[in-house]
């Protein structure tokens, strides 16, 4: 009796177990496995996307690094150019200034020279006239003979010319 079930007992048990089997095996387990697979797929997809994003970021970062390097090189180049330009400009300016100074100096010297000459000529004439006047007054009437006078003056001027410039005032 304990180990041999009556038939109606077996039938009820079988029906009960069939209902449980349908609920568990046909409904519960498939839905469990489905959501399990979906979740696994989502997680795998998420991991894959994260890896892709990481790779992309690495790529962009390496690109940025390249650009930064390029910019650094460019900046260095510009700086070098600027330094060279500045040196050239300074050198040019120095040369120009030197030339200008020389030119101004030369012009000044030339002017000084011409003015000195003019002064010399004018001085020579004035000295001749003054000396002649003086000599006239000293020698007076005796020296009214013009021929003699001009001879004396010429001789005087000759002497004057043969003397150094410093002695002109005497």
């Amino acid at each position, binding site marked *: *009796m*304990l*180990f*041999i*079930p009556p*038939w*109606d*007992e*077996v*039938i*009820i*048990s*079988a029906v*009960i*177990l069939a*209902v*449980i*089997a349908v*609920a*568990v*095996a*046909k*409904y*519960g*387990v*498939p*839905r*469990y*496995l*489905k*959501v*399990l697979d*979906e*979740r696994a797929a*989502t997680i795998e997809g998420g991991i894959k996307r994260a890896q892709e994003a990481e790779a992309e970021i690495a790529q962009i970062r390496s690109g940025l690094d390249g650009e930064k390097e390029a910019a650094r090189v460019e900046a260095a180049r510009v700086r070098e150019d600027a330094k060279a330009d500045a040196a050239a400009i300074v050198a040019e300016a120095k040369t120009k200034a030197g030339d200008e100074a020389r030119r101004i100096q030369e012009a000044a010297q030339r002017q000084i020279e011409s003015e000195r000459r003019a002064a010399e000529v004018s001085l020579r004439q004035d000295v001749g006239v003054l000396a002649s006047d003086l000599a006239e007054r000293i020698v007076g009437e005796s020296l009214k003979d013009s021929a003699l006078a001009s001879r004396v003056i010429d001789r005087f001027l000759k002497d004057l010319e043969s003397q150094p410039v410093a002695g002109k005032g005497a």
Partner: protein
Amino acid sequence: MSSISSVPAAVLNTSGGEGGGMHMPTLDELFPGPFWHIGDWFEFNRLDLVRVIATVALVTLIYLGARKTRLVPTRGQSTFELAMGFVHKQICEATMSPALARRYLPFIATIFFGVLALNITGVLPFLNVSSNSLVAVPMILAVCAWIAFVARGIKVHGLGHYLADNLFPKGAPKWMYVLLTPIEFLSTFILRPVTLTVRLMANMIAGHFLLTAFFVMTSYLLIDGGGLLKGVGLLTAAASFVFVCFEIFIAGLQAFIFAMLTSAYIGLAGEKH
């Protein structure tokens, strides 16, 4: 039957001591008279009702847990997945390859949840009996398990090789087969389903009598006992609580063992030697 049923009754009555107004449970309780007849042969009794209630509860819980499965689970779905995941990972994948575990999960899960639902009624108030105390359900499940593992073995190895592997263990001297073959046959093809059946049924019967005995003793001692006996009644009440917890554990454990062994038998049947 009367000889079997009188044994626990006699034991419990002597241990209960007081006799008198105390009615100790007997095995007859497991075979209550029908309260509903369909035709001449079909009868519906209290244990059948308990079965139906357990089944409806299980189906409802599965429906509630699995009705809206989403990637981000609700609390109900999490619980459902936890239970399914336990059968999947702790039972199926512990004894089979992952691919095979997926294939046999519906079967093993049916055993686990079915046995658990029908066991747990033993501790539920007003139901107070597990229908697995009757042999029918354990026996049907054991037969299904037997069919499943034999079918698996034949499918993987072929009938001849499967029988040869199981009945004539390799490495033994030829004359030993006189001894080994009957033992192997008995242990693999007879004792496996029998032990599955008896282990489950006996556990449920024992649990039922244990709990009923404590409940009956407690109510008798507290109501009819005088003075000191009321104090003993408090002790048996505390013990009742402990044994209810224990029976909840046993209900789960037996479901686990039944499912685990079935899964292991199927896994072993398909193994290459």
